[in-house]
């Protein structure tokens, strides 16, 4: 397929791998922030082409995974109410709350629907004036403009039956939180290309400087990731800590400014709890006061709950890059995609799901 096969070329991949073997002299730990990159790495086996000294650490960039349990419970409660059409992106549906998941709420009669865009939820609200339509606004900066546009349109249309349960999160504060942790082993970052398509990458300069880490804005195809790793290693080997852009075909330094303006108009930066990590200051987006009428938490008055995570699920350590998914004792035993203990096992961007799907039996894969 054009614009895709070029970035999955085995010959080119081998060239990048050779170059990496040539320039690497010491062990390096590099974190790919985004779960989409984690999946590409595991699915295509990119890490197996790297020199042994380079370890890829999987980051917290899976919006579904970091959505706090309390927020999922709120979603489940709202979705189960009569007269509500609860809309969400597909991969949120199987994420376990403290007792059940959205698919089970649907099986018991809740009107839960998958939408491909928040604007489809606005359309549903228009078509069903007698129903309350709620959208589960989850995601990083990548999806924030679409969520913002939905609120903006709903306000323009004066819709009274549309609201959003918002759990939007931001990447740079998460990198900052990881780097300031005493356990942090990460020496370089692959920043998420799609997030930077919207936001640009100016906000990464202070981070690279403060923590002396290379940050390379990287795409999602195998060759993108290999090149991103190569650029990071070249910086590390030569003692540089700069922000570089591997994904120049999609990302500009200043990002997409109309999208950023829209985000600013609708949202304000708020503290946000990350599942498995804890509260990170200034790391989330919440509705501006002007748009508070679209806040589903306020509208439905769902109670703040305080729930305990399963002690068997080590997804917090996985999300912080402290352990690899298969190092969790529950992995593949008590925790499977059919019976998940934590969100990273079911999300399309979760590291546990990637390991389970593509390499849970490494000893058996090796061909004779």
């Amino acid at each position, binding site marked *: *397929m*054009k614009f*895709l*096969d070029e970035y999955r*070329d*085995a010959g080119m*991949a*081998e060239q990048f791998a050779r170059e990496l073997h040539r320039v690497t002299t010491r062990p390096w730990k590099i974190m790919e922030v985004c779960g*989409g990159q984690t999946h590409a790495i595991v*699915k*295509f*086996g*990119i890490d*197996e*082409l790297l020199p042994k000294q380079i370890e890829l650490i999987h980051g917290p960039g899976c*919006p579904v995974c970091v959505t706090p*349990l309390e927020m999922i419970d709120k979603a489940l409660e709202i979705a189960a109410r009569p007269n509500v059409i609860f809309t969400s*992106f*597909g*991969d*949120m*549906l*199987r994420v*376990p*709350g*403290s*007792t*059940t998941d959205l*698919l*089970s709420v*649907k*099986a*018991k009669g809740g009107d839960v629907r*998958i939408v*491909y865009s928040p604007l489809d939820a606005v359309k549903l609200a228009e078509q069903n004036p007698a129903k309350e339509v709620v959208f589960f606004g*989850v*995601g*990083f900066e*990548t*999806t924030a403009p679409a969520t913002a546009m939905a609120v903006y349109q709903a306000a323009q249309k004066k819709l009274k039956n549309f609201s959003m349960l918002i759990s939007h999160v931001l990447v740079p504060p998460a990198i900052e939180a990881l780097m300031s942790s005493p356990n942090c082993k990460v020496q370089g970052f692959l920043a998420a290309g799609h997030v930077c398509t919207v936001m640009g990458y100016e906000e990464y300069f202070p981070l690279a400087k403060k923590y002396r880490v290379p940050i390379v804005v990287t795409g999602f195809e*195998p060759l993108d990731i290999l090149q991103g790793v190569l650029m990071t290693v070249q910086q590390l080997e030569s003692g540089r800590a700069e922000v570089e852009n591997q994904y120049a075909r999609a990302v500009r330094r200043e990002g997409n400014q109309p999208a950023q303006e829209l985000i600013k108009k609708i949202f304000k930066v708020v503290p946000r709890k990350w599942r498995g990590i804890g509260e990170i200051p200034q790391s989330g987006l919440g509705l501006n006061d002007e748009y508070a009428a679209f806040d589903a938490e306020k509208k439905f008055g769902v109670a703040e709950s305080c729930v305990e995570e*399963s002690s068997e699920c080590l997804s917090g350590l996985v999300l912080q890059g402290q352990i690899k998914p298969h190092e969790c004792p529950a992995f593949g035993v008590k925790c499977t*995609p*059919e*019976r*998940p203990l*934590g969100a990273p096992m*079911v999300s*399309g*961007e979760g590291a546990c799901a990637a390991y389970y*799907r*593509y*390499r*849970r*039996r490494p000893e*058996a*894969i*090796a*061909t*004779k």
Partner: protein
Amino acid sequence: MRTQKPIEFSGSCPVPISQYPHVLLAHGGGGKLMHQLIGKMFLEAFRNPLLETQHDAAVMELAGRKIAFTTDSYVVRPLFFPGGDIGSMAVHGTVNDLAMAGARPLYLSSAFIIEEGLPMETLWKIVCSMRDAVKKCGVQIVTGDTKVVDKGKGDGLFINTAGVGVIEHEQTIAPQNVRAGDAILVSGDVGRHGMAIMAVREGLEFESQIESDSAPVHEVVLDLLKAGIEIHCLRDLTRGGLASALNEIAEAAGMKIAIEEKSVPIREDVHAACEMLGLDPLHVANEGRFIAFVAAKDSDRALQILRRHDVSENAAFIGKVVEKSAPLVTLKSAIGVQRILDMASGEQLPRIC
């Protein structure tokens, strides 16, 4: 964090599936949850040697003749889609299940569960489509049933068809007959039916219209048999796609299977649509595709025969059976690294970004 509510049992037989107290849509998605439901509930309750072969059709002796027998229910929304409709699909699907046992399809039953309020004209269009399909397939609908349910209790129309065919050769075609070294052929590009349905259902517009691959494949199978190709197993690709079919065979045969991603034919528009939605074309449904496990020596000849037929003109060699082992399917990725090709868990859910 998933706490299980105790399930109330009555009598001495506990419900064999305790993980979900209610049936989810994913239990019909062709993935692991469905296989669990079939394995733990249906297979367990109805256990017998014929059922245990877990083939697309059961093969049995009746009055000195070998016959194949199968059934399938068809629930599709919308009823009409690019490349087909529920009626033609209900004929092709059952004909194909018989073909997978190497049988010549002969007789079909057809049961209609109709929702009150379905326009008579719609029903007639579907019936006419079935009439044309049975004619094309050379089979007859010889018995049937009609039920009407209250408005809101059905999705317009559900159709169940069962089919009987005769087996006129001496080969044993079944998962248990798969051998190490067998060549694996796929009869054409994969993922088309699922993406055609999704595009219409979700109002997704692509530059070109993706048409379902719904078609009968029995003629080509009979041709392979006539040419004396040593066929060890056949499996049609439906829900769960190529990945499910390969895993089912690996499981039933106790074999390790290795395929190459680059060899699997996928149309460019289907590939693009899947990329956009974050779906894997190897997990997407098909209605006119099958895989054949043939003796390695016959692989080239089988491909030539497949490519002579319109329904399988894009047939390709995709991999081989490696060895007797714990069941496993591996895939060599585009950049040349081996990984697991797993069965999907339940339904494929489009991702966030």
